[in-house]
């Protein structure tokens, strides 16, 4: 599965070599591939009876995971905020 990451680096090298040209159309290509892949994911999901039947529990799990992820990240951001801004202001005062 690390092949895909290797492919991305090959793309980065190509993009860097072609940096004199503005390859602005590449964003349209990316968007179309994302559409295609999410369409295919949808077909996978829709034809899988177990997922369709369990969609409400899957949705609940997704929201629980998100709340945990957001809470964890904003707590860490608060710690950095405290160290960079709050503590400095206090020592200056």
């Amino acid at each position, binding site marked *: 599965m690390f092949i*895909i990451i290797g492919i991305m680096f090959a793309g980065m090298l190509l993009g860097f070599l072609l940096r004199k040209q503005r390859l602005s159309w590449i964003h349209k290509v990316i968007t179309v591939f994302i559409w295609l892949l999410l369409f295919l994911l*949808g*077909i996978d999901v*829709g034809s899988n009876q177990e997922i369709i039947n369990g969609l409400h529990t899957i949705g609940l799990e997704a929201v629980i995971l998100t709340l945990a992820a957001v809470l964890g990240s904003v707590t860490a951001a608060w710690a950095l905020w405290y160290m960079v801004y709050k503590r400095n202001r206090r020592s200056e005062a």
Partner: protein
Amino acid sequence: MKGSLIIISFFIIGTLCGVYHLIPYDFTQSNLSYYALCALMFSVGISVGNDPQTLRNFRSLNPRLIFLPVMTILGTLAGCAVISLFLPHRSLSDCLAVGSGFGYYSLSSIFITEYKGAELGTIALLSNISREIITLLFAPLLVRWFGNLAPISSGGATTMDTTLPIITRTAGESFVVVSIFHGFVVDFSVPFLVTLFCSFP
């Protein structure tokens, strides 16, 4: 916002096609999505390599805020690790893989579907869409409760595009550069971290 709605519509249309068997060809048995994913990542690589200007803008960044993406990544993974204890039929690595999407729902759900199957892929899609929505809706509250860096951290990989306007409005214009830098780094970490956590059983 319009772009996100179109992406979601493609997923919903695909789901309806699957439910009603509108497409006779069986994609689940083919490698089509794998090759499309390779082509997508090649294109993503080209777009990153072709745009050195973004990297140059990061010089005006407050050096101590370089750690913000690291805080976002560690905080997210810690939160997902804790909650995995309360989700008995999801393994720790599954929860960490979903959390490693950081709101980048298109790419993370595609990767996780490829590695772990459509069920966890759907969780990744829904979870990371809701991360973007939570950030858009609660940015003002996050600033009040957790400081000005909180909406950037909460936005994850989306802070260089979709959630940038709300961040500048709630945290202030002076956070534009750190927000773009943060989005760039977290965005870039998604394929690595998702692949890493999916490689665990």
